[in-house]
């Protein structure tokens, strides 16, 4: 790790100012990606602006929608009876992120702002038609993830909360890396406003909806509707964990498992 300046902001505006005043500033949420990256010297920011001291970024509100504050750790989402009551699949997803240490430190804001292709939350953001609230505006979940580690966030923009639509039903199936528990492929299938939405993470450069799987399931959520349905592998990731062809296969399998959970 290289030397850097640490700042603890007490408000969103102070955080913005601290970051914009730095040569190469970054925001720190849970630090589950940033800190290891800095320790490996893959990142060398001059200034780290900690968001943990800002009030109002941590918490869960359940009403007509489920709103999760950006600094809410995964463990809180997983343990929330209100979330489990409204969107069981979201609590289930949060409870299977990483390990207990990661779930106690990692935050939803940090997870989605990083747009790691193997993160779990992005599948829910696109499948549940979420709205990402920032200190400047609202961003539709479908527009948020742009590419590998790239989002619609502008430099210095801070995610304040993520607001999920409550589906009639939803399920998340994941093929985890056995060591890290990152999603080699994760698929959320949701029935929302009478339509089926399929959010895929882990497979491509960033989370996306699968038009092919959604079309196959448009007639009803049954595993049989996915018989013979394959997923194109042209744009999928290929790395030491899985080839693009295998990821495409896993997307179809995880979709079947998610639908199977709903049918069962």
């Amino acid at each position, binding site marked *: 790790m290289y030397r850097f300046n640490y700042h603890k902001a007490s408000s969103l505006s102070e955080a913005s100012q601290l970051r914009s005043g730095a040569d190469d500033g970054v925001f720190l949420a849970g630090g589950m990606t940033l800190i290891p990256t800095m320790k490996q010297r893959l990142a060398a920011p001059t200034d780290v602006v900690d968001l943990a001291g800002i009030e109002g970024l941590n918490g869960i509100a359940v009403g007509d929608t489920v709103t999760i504050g950006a600094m809410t750790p995964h463990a809180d989402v997983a343990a929330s009876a209100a979330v489990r009551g409204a969107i069981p699949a979201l609590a289930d997803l949060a409870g299977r992120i990483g390990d207990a240490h990661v779930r106690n430190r990692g935050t939803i804001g940090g997870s989605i702002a990083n747009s790691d292709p193997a993160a779990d939350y992005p599948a829910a953001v696109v499948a549940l038609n979420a709205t990402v609230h920032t200190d400047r505006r609202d961003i539709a979940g479908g527009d948020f993830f742009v590419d590998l580690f790239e989002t619609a966030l502008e430099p210095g923009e801070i995610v304040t909360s993520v607001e999920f639509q409550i589906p009639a039903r939803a399920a998340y199936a994941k093929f985890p890396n056995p060591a890290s528990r990152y999603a080699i492929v994760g698929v959320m299938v949701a029935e929302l406003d009478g339509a089926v939405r399929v959010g895929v993470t882990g497979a491509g450069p960033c989370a996306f909806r699968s038009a092919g799987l959604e079309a196959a399931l448009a007639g009803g959520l049954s595993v049989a509707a996915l018989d013979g349905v394959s997923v194109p592998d042209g744009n999928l990731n290929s790395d030491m964990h*899985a*080839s693009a062809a*295998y990821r495409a*296969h896993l997307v179809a399998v995880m979709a079947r498992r998610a639908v199977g959970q709903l049918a069962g």
Partner: protein
Amino acid sequence: MPSSPGPTPVTPCTHNPLGVKGCGEAGAIGATAAVMNAVTDALGVKELAMPATSETVWNALRG
């Protein structure tokens, strides 16, 4: 740390004709071969490169 050449003590095992000793993974390494034999038998293939990851098995299944 500087290199420190020294004598290699030789203490042959007295319990077998070769005087050899198992070391390190000697006790465990047989399991790897046994599992790979089981996997290749189940898949009906003659060879499969370790490790038998899910993708390796999937590829073998597809021929």
